[in-house]
């Protein structure tokens, strides 16, 4: 039983961590771009901003299950196969990246405009403002956004398990749905719940510790 559970648990953790890293790598800069290229902001590019915002909206509109099927070919190119634990990281990252971008955008938007203005008055460049003002000032809010992203990814990864991904979702489907082994299904569900609770707990604590407001 322990072996049966352990491998899928590690698979889930692996998928979630990898997808978090990739989606942050893509989504974080995009979120910053969304804010700074907006009209009236520090690096005005209204046309670019509209296009970027449009693409993000389209990606966010696609239901995850459909997105997964759509990116099967892409996963094949990147990791060499279209199903399995590693392959699932591709659709997970693509699904979460636009979500991360929006989360970053709203976190940065919380910053008082006056603070940005005073930095401009001190002669800060766009890059200096991003690095020294936008990111540090919104950090607590960004951390709580990342927490939300990780929890979403745990949910998505379980869903991915149903159509060829590995992990706890796959375990629950295999045993619960196909073999009517309710016990294994409940155990995998319990582990997912513990993962979500743990992530939320750490995220909340970090946010509180970091926020000096």
């Amino acid at each position, binding site marked *: 039983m322990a072996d049966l559970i352990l491998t899928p648990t590690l698979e889930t953790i692996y998928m979630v961590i990898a997808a978090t890293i990739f989606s942050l790598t893509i989504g974080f800069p995009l979120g910053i771009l969304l804010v700074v290229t907006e009209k009236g902001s520090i690096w005005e590019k209204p046309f670019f901003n509209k296009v970027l915002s449009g693409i993000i909206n389209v990606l966010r509109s696609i239901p995850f299950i459909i997105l997964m099927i759509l990116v099967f070919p892409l996963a094949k190119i990147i990791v060499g196969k279209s199903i399995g634990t590693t392959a699932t990281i591709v659709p997970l990252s693509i699904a979460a990246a636009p979500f991360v971008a929006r989360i970053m955008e709203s976190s940065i938007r919380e910053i*008082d405009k006056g*603070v940005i203005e*005073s*930095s401009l*008055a001190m*002669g800060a460049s766009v890059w200096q403002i991003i690095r020294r003002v936008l990111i540090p*000032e919104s950090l607590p809010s960004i951390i709580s956004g990342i927490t939300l992203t990780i929890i979403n990814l745990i949910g998505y990864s379980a869903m991915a398990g149903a159509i060829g991904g590995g992990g706890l979702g796959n375990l629950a489907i295999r045993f619960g749905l196909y073999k009517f082994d309710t016990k294994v299904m409940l155990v995998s569900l319990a582990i997912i719940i513990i993962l979500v609770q743990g992530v939320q707990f750490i995220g909340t604590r970090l946010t509180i510790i970091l926020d000096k407001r």
Partner: protein
Amino acid sequence: MIKLDSVTKEFYTTASQIIAVDKVSLNIQKAEIYGIIGLSGAGKSTLIRCLNRLEEPSSGKIVIDNVDITSLGKEDLRNQRKEIGMIFQHFNILAQKTVYENIAFPLYLEKWSKKDIEYRIEELLTFVELEDKRDSYPSQLSGGQKQRVAIARAIANNPKVLLSDEGTSALDPHTTKSILKLLKKIRDEFGLTIVMITHQMEVVKQVCDKVAIMEDGKVIEENTVENLFKSPKTKIAKAFISSINPSIDEEILNPKDFKGKLIRLAFMGESSKKPIVSRLIKTFDIDVNILSGSIDTLQATNVGHLILELIGGEREVVKVLNYLENENVNVEVI
């Protein structure tokens, strides 16, 4: 030091065009504390923001320390902004950073060495009297302390000019006073030229050398603070002065309610120290009724105001008026 030539700022909305600043020309001397006062919507905030081009002027020329600010490209403007410190009504300091890190901000931008930053900040903390708040976060500070942090930050890299956009408007009167004292100390010790926007005459009275009054985007009156207090020309200037001295508001005095002649006296410097009223009574055959009076302590001198009712013969009154003129007193018959 700072020269504005026909600076204009227009805003366009879909429906209309708003002229926020209308052909403003000013000449501000080095180490002067220059006040720009006006009601909200007068365009004063837009004007001061044009000085470091946080707001792009639509036309006109701004020269600060022989540099034509209006013609600078992006990079040059960024460098020039480092010579112009600025403080704001709502302080605008970083909420997630300590006092130390906040003050260090402009020094980080200029890539000072860690040791130099450390040294400079200790110096600044002493100057603004926040030695014990070095590692505090803004949420642990009072409004006045936050503004002190903002001031230390604004002067950290030794700029030549300090702009204050309603820097004391969010503070209580006592704190306002201490912040104004600090600004004056900055001018006196470092010779900074300070331009401040305010809607409080009290602020102008306490620290400014010169003042411009703005209304509807235009500077309608410009004078030294003493002269403004002594003889305000425009209605709005009078209104600002009476806002801190309600007693000299002559609108509440109706000459028809009095038998004698009502006169308003304004005197400053030497003449404010002479016992003028007592001499009037002794020298001329006249009765004097004091209706209101006040003395304002300004930067350079004292300005006194008196509203008197002169009761006596027509000729005696004329003699009194002549006497007062000779004594260097500004007389206005109400």
